[in-house]
């Protein structure tokens, strides 16, 4: 009978060992060179799903095939981060994976879910500091590990419907935006909103705090990684402004109006339908308006800024699509060839940018004479180049921090929370506690 506990312990240990076997970190082996031209097929997972985007992306992959005829790319569309994560964990990852969000970059790098690309960059003699604008470094690396590369970038600005603006110029300050929003709003006899000048609440499609915080230059974190939200007066300024405008509409009326909207990514977007005069959105909306609502006469401008920060006008939020080689990729050499092509080849980036109207992510592509630069798109190129534009630096709790902040914004806008200082102090506490839990900070 004495053998039973020992046997149980051994089995338990074996099980635990088996369970944790997938947690080892393996350093990537850097390919010696591209001398090997044996035919190879690589798996590539990406998130593109719209027809125009898929066609443009297929064209780009055809360009890759011309340059690297021995590599066949088997592409899988509409893949989310969760699927990439599970594939890596299951030991069957794609050779190359693309993510539309930079929220997980810190975890991708920290946990080694994507391989550190610095050795590949060194082997290919690519200097990221001279190839990419500086802001990109903030969302493609974490603690010195560059585990993803940028493949096109996004910049956020203000879209305005010229017909609904009735000759008004786009606002440059938050006061101007509020004044114009009230002036352009049309309500029916019951007070329900028929056309909104601007929907100020944080749940409006692209009004998430990461995008609107730039309007007041608000900070998310302190240098030590703890929350700066409660101590930065700019958040309070932004939320007070949002609340005042939401109250002018009536929060319930605003919610009823918002919930009548169609899908953000469909032709039913209220900006396409002329139901909102001004909206915060990314540069990609240019291509969507061209295909879904070509009759809308619109203009673009930088985001309005706080009244006392007019020198910052022209800045916006910047982020981008990222691409990398997951841990366990079987064909690393060919995978790097594809990543290098999609992120550094000027012709490929320019063609893709022209097709889906995303901002090119390398300095040579931004300067390329082949890049289509109509005035509405130029606005976003200028925002991208503005030194005051900012991004959300890679953070292991990026999603949690944004959720916590947005939750506080909803409570405040709706009037369900009335003490803004206490609300933001609570945000700080939650973010700092979470930091201790996940990063030991």
């Amino acid at each position, binding site marked *: 009978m004495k053998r039973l506990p020992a046997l149980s312990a051994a089995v338990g240990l074996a099980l635990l060992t088996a369970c944790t076997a997938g947690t080892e970190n393996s350093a990537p082996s850097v390919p010696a060179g591209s001398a090997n031209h044996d035919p190879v097929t690589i798996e590539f997972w990406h998130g593109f799903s719209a027809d125009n985007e898929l066609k443009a992306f297929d064209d780009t992959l055809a360009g890759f095939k011309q340059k690297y005829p021995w590599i066949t790319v088997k592409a899988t569309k509409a893949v989310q981060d969760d699927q990439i*994560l599970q594939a890596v964990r299951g030991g069957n990852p794609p050779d190359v994976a693309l993510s*539309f969000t930079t929220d997980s970059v810190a975890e991708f790098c920290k946990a080694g879910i994507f391989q550190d690309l610095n050795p590949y960059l060194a082997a290919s003699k690519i200097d990221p500091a001279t190839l990419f604008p500086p802001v990109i470094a903030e969302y493609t690396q974490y603690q010195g590990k560059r585990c993803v590369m940028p493949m096109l970038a996004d910049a956020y600005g203000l879209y305005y419907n010229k017909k609904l603006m009735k000759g008004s110029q786009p606002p440059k300050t938050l006061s101007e935006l509020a004044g114009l929003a009230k002036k352009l709003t049309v309500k029916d006899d019951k007070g329900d909103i028929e056309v909104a000048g601007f929907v100020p609440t944080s749940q409006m499609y692209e009004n998430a705090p990461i995008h609107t915080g730039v309007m007041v230059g608000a900070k998310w974190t302190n240098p030590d990684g703890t929350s700066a939200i409660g101590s930065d007066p700019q958040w309070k300024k932004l939320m007070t402004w949002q609340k005042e405008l939401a109250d002018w509409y009536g929060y319930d009326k605003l919610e009823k109006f918002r*919930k009548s909207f169609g899908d953000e990514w469909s032709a039913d977007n209220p900006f396409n339908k002329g139901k909102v005069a001004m909206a915060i959105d990314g540069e990609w909306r240019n291509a969507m308006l061209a295909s879904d609502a070509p009759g809308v006469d619109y203009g673009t401008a930088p985001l309005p800024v706080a009244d006392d920060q007019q020198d910052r006008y022209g800045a916006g939020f910047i982020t981008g699509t990222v691409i990398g080689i997951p841990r366990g990729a079987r064909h690393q050499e060919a995978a790097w060839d594809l990543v290098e092509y999609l992120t550094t080849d000027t012709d490929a980036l320019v063609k893709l940018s022209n097709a889906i109207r995303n901002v090119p992510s390398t300095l040579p592509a931004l300067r390329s004479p082949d890049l289509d630069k109509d005035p509405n798109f130029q606005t976003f190129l200028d925002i991208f180049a503005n030194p005051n534009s900012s991004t959300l630096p890679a953070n292991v709790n990026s*999603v949690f921090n944004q959720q916590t902040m947005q939750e506080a914004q909803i409570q405040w806008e709706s009037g369900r929370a009335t003490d803004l200082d206490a609300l933001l102090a609570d945000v700080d506490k939650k973010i700092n506690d979470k930091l201790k*839990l996940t990063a030991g900070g």
Partner: protein
Amino acid sequence: MAATALGRRGPAVPSSSRGGRRRANLRALLYLSPWLAGFAIFFVYPLLSTVYFSFQRYDMFTLEPVGLLNYRYLLHDDAAWTALRNTLWLVVVMVPLRVLFGLGVAQLITKVKAGAGVLRTIFYLPSLVPLVAGTLGFVYLLNPGTGPVQAVLDAVGLPSPDWFGDPAWSKWGLTILGLWSVGDLMVIFLAALLDVPRQLYEAAAIDGANAWHQFTRITLPIIRPVLMFATVTGVIQTLQYFTQAMVAARVASGATDSAGSVFVPGYPDQSTLTFPEWLFHQGFRDYAMGYACVLALVLFAISMVFTLILLRQFRGFAEEEA
């Protein structure tokens, strides 16, 4: 000593008989082995792993021992306690309402003279609708901007709450969704009600018992095992309540699965956040699998307590019946 030992061990057994018993035990173990293997692989191993990971900082790729950090975090994780309160609210409110509603519908169908089959089908069909589709349909129906329910209420001049956008109403919205899909319980109750001997009602009627007395003195005692079954399974299912709350919150909030679109779980104001949902978010969205394991252990403990209480009740009832 020998007598004492014999007394303790029972009467002496011939060695051939002992061998036979051993063989019988081995044979029984052999027959049980598929279940034992399944129990070990799918219950004991995950449970041990969960306990082990609850003491680790585990992002599903790297491990770091952190002692009781995950347990300490639980003590001041407001969202976890809110999620627990919401889940218990659903157990206390939604489960009894579903049982009562299912029983009421079944009782009505037994009384219908014509068209009972059609009614039975109509009430049963919603339980066949996939959870996601049913929830999407409900959020659409109750949408204050475009929903037909709002339009009807507006037309007759009645106010309508923002069912899935107002924290005071959101759990009631989920409860109505639960009542709509009560067909699974209704069918079980219907079978139980039809099984009650008619003669008992006839005898009671002759003795002057009214409908209420017949229901409480004849129907309820006879269908009590079925009621208990419905309650036990309802409580266990509701402790795992996830899909409807997640879908309703996501659709009502307007968040999409895209970059920059932040989905706040439990929208609005965490009023629909359930314990399993928070567990999922911690483990699979926030990369805090170690902490998610603590939440899983808490859920396991609560489920055990509920199950033990209900089983005790059930045993008491069974003894009473015997």
